[in-house]
């Protein structure tokens, strides 16, 4: 069941209800529009001119649904809502704080020397004693 894609109606740019006269009139504009090639346009027109093949074609594509009413009214409340709201409270204190490194570093000062003996005496427990002399071992 070969499907006709694109639809001959789309090729010629005519509605489902178009008659033979409209079909014939649509060929020229379709050619000029250049959206489809010549052969496609001619085949589309030929198909639509054949009532039996056209009926089969009509049944090979979705039929349009019934028009609906009242949907726009359903959406009314949504359309009434504002799209953009800017929420701005008062600025907090921290937002107005400005701290710049250069301004703070300007207050820094080098500490004075501590003033202590740079070389205190070695504690007695780390000085030299007789433990450095090896004992006399009994030979084996």
């Amino acid at each position, binding site marked *: *069941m070969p499907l006709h894609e694109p639809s001959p109606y789309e090729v010629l740019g005519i509605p489902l*209800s178009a008659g033979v006269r409209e079909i014939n009139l649509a060929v020229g504009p379709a050619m000029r529009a250049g959206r489809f090639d010549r052969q496609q346009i001619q085949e589309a027109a030929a198909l639509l001119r054949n009532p*039996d093949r056209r*009926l089969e074609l*009509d*049944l*090979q*594509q*979705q*039929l*349009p649904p*019934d028009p*609906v009413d009242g*949907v*726009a009214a*359903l*959406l009314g*409340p*949504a*359309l009434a809502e504002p*799209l*953009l709201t*800017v*929420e701005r409270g008062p*600025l*907090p*204190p*921290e*937002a*107005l*704080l*400005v*701290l*710049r*490194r*250069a301004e*703070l*570093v300007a*207050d*820094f000062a*080098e*500490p*004075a020397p*501590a*003033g*202590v*003996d*740079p070389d205190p005496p070695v*504690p*007695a*427990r*780390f000085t030299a004693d*007789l*433990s*450095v*002399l*090896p004992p*006399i071992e*009994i*030979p084996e």
Partner: protein
Amino acid sequence: MAQVVLVLLVVALVGAGGVALLRRARALDPGAVAKALTSAAVQAAAGRQERARRQYARLAGRLAAAPAPMRPQRGLALLGQAEATAALGDGPAALPLYREAFPLLADPARQLPRWSLAQLAEERMRAPEGDLAPALAFVRAAGRGAQPGAEAEAVGRTLGWLQQLCREGSVEQRESATAAVQGGLPGWDWPVLARAALLRDSGRRAEAEAVLATAAPAGGAELWFRLGASLSTPGREAQAVAAFDEALRRGPGEPSPWSRGPALPAECLLFRGLARQFLQDPVAAEVDLRAAAAQAPADPRPRYALGRLALLRDADDQAREHFTAALAAEPSYAPARLGLALLHERAGRAAEAAADYRAGLALAPDWRPALVRLGAALLAAGQPAQAEPLLRAEASANSPWARIAAFHHGLALAQTGDPAGALECWEPLRDEDLLDRLALLRDRLARRVLATDPAGARALWQRAVADAPAVPGYRLALREAALREAAHLLLGARDVPAARARAAEALALAGPPPSTDRAGQAAREGRLRAALALAGGSAEGLGALLDPSGAPRDRYHLAAAALLTGRAVQTVTLLAPLEPDPQGDPGLARLRALLAERAGNLPLALEWHEHFLAAGGAGPDALDGARCSTGADCAEPAVDACGGCGREGCAGHLYRPAGALSPRCDHCAGHALDAVLDCGRRLGLPERAEPALTAWADVLGDGPAGRTVRRHLALLRAEAGELDAALDLLPAGAARERSAVLVRRAAAALAAQQAGPAAVDLRRAVELRPDHPQAVPALGTLAEHEARQHAAEGRDEDAWEGYRTLLLRDPGHPRVLHSLGLVSYRRALAAEAAGSAEAEALWQWAVGCLVCALHLPELWAEAARVTGRPLEAERIAAARGALTDRLRGDLRELDRARGRSADQVDAWTVRLGMEARSAEAFAQEELRVAVPGAPERRLVLGPALGGLLRPAPAGSVLATWEGQFEQAVLPFRRPGPFGAHPLTEALSLFDGLGPHRYLLLQGRHAAAVAALDAIPEAERDEAWHVLSREALISEAREHHRHQDWREALDRLARARALPGAPLAAELSLLAADAGLRAARALLKESDDDQQGAVELLEQALELAPDHAEVRSNLGAAYAQLARKTNNESTDYSAALVLLRKALTLAPEDPTARHFLEAALGNRANQLTRPGPDRDLLEAVELWQELIELDADPEHRLALAYSQRLLARSAALADNRAEAVARMAASLRADPEWNGDTAREAPRRVSVLLANHTVDELQDRPFAERARLLRQAQTYDDSADLRRLMVSVWRSEAADDYVAKRYQDATSLLEQALDLAHHPEDLAKIRNELGVVCGAHAVQNANQRQYRQARALIAKAVGHSPDDRELRALKRRIDALR
């Protein structure tokens, strides 16, 4: 007889030998062996060496297998044999005997001659392994009294070998050797020393000491010295001194590798002196050490010991003298060199000390204390770089001197400018004497890191203050560090509460300002505290901390605080002295903007907010390696600071659009842009805000601020009606806003009568906001438009889902059915091309929906309405047919691709046909159903669509539809009185056998039958049986019509085999006709195929059992087949079966009767022969049947023979009655017999048995033959039978005689004697009994059974009294005793 005598002699000899052996065996007891040894020794002592050797050898041989307790006696026997052999001058022969005797003797060292021991020791030394006993025995025998010369040399070699074994080899080998030697050489010192050395070396010092203590009392000085050395441990010096005393008193033992030799006295004095030194007796110690030095002037150790003693007394000069003397005695004696080094270090001569330590370490490189002291000496000598690696290694070593090394290592690091390393070394050594050094190190370190890490510096000074609280400089430094730390924390993490808390702590730690520069320090601290308060969200109390006349930033913060606390006038006052500058400090611009907003001057406020975003302010700061602190979780290096707030940020978190003089952070940009937008909208000029928003949207990127700006910008455009642009601009996360814009675009599309695009937008809106209160119901209304839009835009999956959802809500909707079928078809093609598994289901949707939709008149009416062209019924039918044919073409290709034929039940063409047939049937009826929420719909359904819609979930719309469907079709479920309605047939296609039924309805009987046959046995139910029967009968009729007789017959046979009522009479006739025609056709083709004809006719007979023509034809066919079987394959049994069947069907058939006589004769003859009773019985019956048909005498003789064979069989089975009866029947059947049957029958049975024994059993055992003959005797005990038995018995006795089974032979002959009546037989038997008994008597005599022999020979003579030889034999046997 000569043989008998010889046998007697041999027996006598064997008996005598046995007695002698028994006597010998009894002589092997210890006493007797001792006696024998004594006897042999007496012989040897008397000089009769050869006799002695023999006696010893004999005795040793006898004792070889003696029990273990007698092994020493065997050793003595071998020893005696060896000595006797040696005495005879055959030394080489004697040595093996000594070797054999050695392990058996109690004390071979004493018992064996020394020369033999020497030989055995040499042999052992040459062997790679073995017992050390021969070498030890030799040393023990000759060691201390060896003859000078060869023997002494042998002893020396043996000792050297033993000592080598104790010193060398593995621990296990030495363990074994020292233990053996110590045990094998008691009284010797060196084995004890060797053993103790081994134990000491293997860590068993206690065992070594025990060995020495045990052996020392009987040992020499060497043992005591070694014992003293073993006792020289802390706490046992007094015992050691006593042991050394004893060593000095005793003489030296034998020299050995383990002895001190001549040096022993000096060694004893040295170590006794050292022990006394440990006992705190320096005077006695010095006496001993000096004596030792005098006795061994070349030994440096006594001098060195004296030097250490002097150092202990602080007599450094004496110590130097002794160390120098020790070095003079031995220049390479390292301890003395180290003593000199220590003397230098104590005296502060660091360079000399280092030199001597180096020299000492060159001699003793592993002495760790010297390494540590060398490092300390190098440090003291001002060489920290050389000392550091040395001390580092020693500090990390696991030794008692590691802590000293660690201190000096820290010292070295401190000297080389590494206070952190020094701290690391000293902290583990922390004690009171180290605190000032630790504080000093931390002070140095803190000063180093203060600029970059004020928190670290603050911590270091905190510790320094704790360790050295008296040092004021540390406290001042701590304050500076704390203030810096607070400043750094505010700069780097003002937004982090924990950082602000730490800053507060740092400010508290800083403490009161120092007396010097108190005002300046207070302003600095106030500035920090004010910043901390603002950062924490408080603008209160800043007036007490800040001075407006101080730094410009202090004035700004005071103005900001005033504005924040509602004192706008004060803000204005504070800002008044400052000239407004749009390019100046952005902070001031923001204050001015806020002031203008508060005053209601929105244009001015908008301008100052724009100035804030673009102003430059101060130039870039020196960031000093700061990290990004814009509030984002980012650790990248900061590259600049925000012009608004001063937050330092990385390149990714600071933003600067073209034209701005400095960057801004998220916080500042976000607040300012909101303000710009708000002011613009409040002014009614939202477009005023757009340039700023657009510029910043580009640079803010995808961060939160960027997304907010883009959202605002997009919504601004949406408000302006640019919905597509707004949707493009909205960021991904703005779901709510996107949903709102989509709803607006849907509304616009609806207004333009474009319901499809509107539905698509609403769907997207609902996806973003599933609870959208307006979009959800609107979308429900537009569902079909949405699906169609999806289809139009190629979103087939979405379209399919949409249509399917609609169909499940309203299953009879013609347009939805049609659209879903088309979309399913398109998806099925795509799935087929992609090889997807979905294709199968999609094809089912396509077939079901399309076919049913095309049969709905409402669809065609809809098409006419849409196109505006009326449609005639013919054109509709033609279009429907054309479309169905095209679909069938597609499905045919599909089946071909999948290897399915059009006759298979799962073929798509079959499914399409079913769907079309069903839809057509439904379309002819006006059936309607209605579901909630949908209008009443015409019902058109096929199996494919029905399978997709059912079973429906309970409670669903579909379930309601299903219920109505069942109600609507209920009248059509069963066939009506006038045959099946098309809709009834259609409904029958909906179950599992639907395709099979469809094939049948289509007239494709063979395909239907094949498909039904393909259903597994386990799945066949009653419906299957009914349908199969119907299919088979239909097929049979078709075959009959086509004159396929055989096939027609077969199908009818299969149909009859199925459960159900019998075949109708009409079908029976059909089967009979088919069977007869098939058989005729077969025989016409091949008149020899009787078997085939029979089978066909049998089949026909089963289907038409009373059909006369079938019966007569089958009878004739049986007869012809029997003839063929009888003549060609000679299977007479089969022929008989066939002939009996033939006569059953046609009893008067003469041909069959004639064939039966022939077959009976053939079969009976075949069976009449010796064989199984079963065959013979059958033969009897056959002969009897034949005799009834034809009483030929030959047939009677054959019957008699058969009965005779049965009689023999019964007699052999010991069934006497049966045997006699069968023999009587045989006689009766015999046409020539006319005697007394009752009398003759047993006799003939007896003869049969006797003949059978003689003819058939001649090679069987005697017992079997005898049993049968005795059985024959029970039927008729005739003289002939007895002579036959005597002959058999004698023959068997002869065999026994030859085999020398005289007793058996005698028994048989005696039985024969009882059976025999004929004199000749009697004489022969007695003579034979004489011979047999005589031979038996000789046999007994030879076996020395004289009594039996005499009885037997007497019996023999009794049977043959005239036999001279027997009598002579009797005399000889009687003479035997």
